[in-house]
């Protein structure tokens, strides 16, 4: 019975080591490069971001238009 527990622990430990080996081996880039790309993405898309730049009330279905139209 105790062997089963030990075997379980072993399997878990083997899996943990295998997973850590995988994670340790991935290729990484420098934060400066990664951060620059995040910043550039923001800036390139800023003009198309309605919550950032705002859209005219008439275009935004959630903002009430300035005047009511009756039809």
């Amino acid at each position, binding site marked *: 019975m105790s062997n089963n527990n030990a075997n379980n622990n072993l399997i878990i430990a083997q899996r943990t080591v295998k997973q850590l080996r995988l994670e340790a081996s991935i290729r990484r880039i420098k934060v400066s490069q*990664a951060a620059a790309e995040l910043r550039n993405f923001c800036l390139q898309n800023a003009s198309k971001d309605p919550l950032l730049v705002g859209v005219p009330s008439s275009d935004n279905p959630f903002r009430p238009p300035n005047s009511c139209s009756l039809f």
Partner: protein
Amino acid sequence: FPKQTFSLCCKPFRCRSLPARRKYMRSPLVPEMATQEVQLNETLSHLKTESDTLKTKLEEERAKLHDVELHQVAEKVDGLGQFVMKTRRTLKGHGNKVLCMDWCKDKRRIVSSSQDGKVIVWDAFTTNKEHAVTMPCTWVMACAYAPSGCAVACGGLDNKCSVYPLSLDKNENLAAKKKSVAMHTNYLSACSFTNSDMQILTSSGDGTCALWDVESGQLLQSFHGHAADVLCLDLAPSETGNTFVSGGCDKKANVWDMRSGQCIQSFETHESDINSVRYYPSGDAFASGSDDATCRLYDLRADREVAIYSKESIIFGVSSVDFSLSGRLLFGGYNDYTINVWDVLKGTRVSILFGHENRVSTLRVSPDGTAFCSGSWDHTLRTWA
């Protein structure tokens, strides 16, 4: 007052961790068994040493590339001005706490689910209710809209994820066409359709995530690796490939390969449960919100946390996060009833939104980025723009 007491009361049946490895018991009866025990013990301790060495190496490798902070790279970027965001619509109709919501791709319909078992589909422009379903369980913690807009998925304490096709006929009983897709061994915490109506990804209190075929209900792939309840998940934007990120009560955020079931990256910097994860629009990073009152940004290519969004005055947990279309703004719904808006690049808070009368439990930006919707324990949903 201690923050812990507030965070413990909101998650049903949450277990801090799955049964830990049972203590190794000694049974010295048979000599051969004793020798085997010793051998296993040695192997175990070797593995433990290797495991510790690898963890240290991982930290060192990550630290080597940490040459600058995100906000330093963003120093020359213009600051954001004052934001005027107000509640534009209030959706009333749920009889109890709103737990989850999702937008339809048509940018106008919303599905929401609540503690009282009701799932409601709304037209967010007119605030009309288009469909309502009563689930056989309470605490419907997860709901999602199908990409086609023709169905919704939901689940919670029933441990299942069910799909309801939406009928054009308002009088039709939706419950009759219900399809049970996912089966977990504990509560369903989150669900999401993949690119099509045909597959659903789920996360559960049983510590696993799983990918299911909607038509047959077959389990296509399961994802094991979290040591406790998984509370949230988000799929990578379709252009960036088949991965998703999950967050759990083990304080870890894991990135998974959907085809192989492998965990490819893991991040453990939060100090408490991770309630929400959301990919940055480019797919190269993701944000997380936690009971530790912080939101954090993790870059996938640098393989590390690159920003923390926090203030000393913010002491309540974050339940839900989402980005604006360009990724410049991060919206966080908090347990202190507010929504904080963060400048992702500079790390500063640009706005704080009041309106809800109880915890904000869920928050999503609309598909075209013109508005965002928040759901709360005050029984209402609000759209803001």
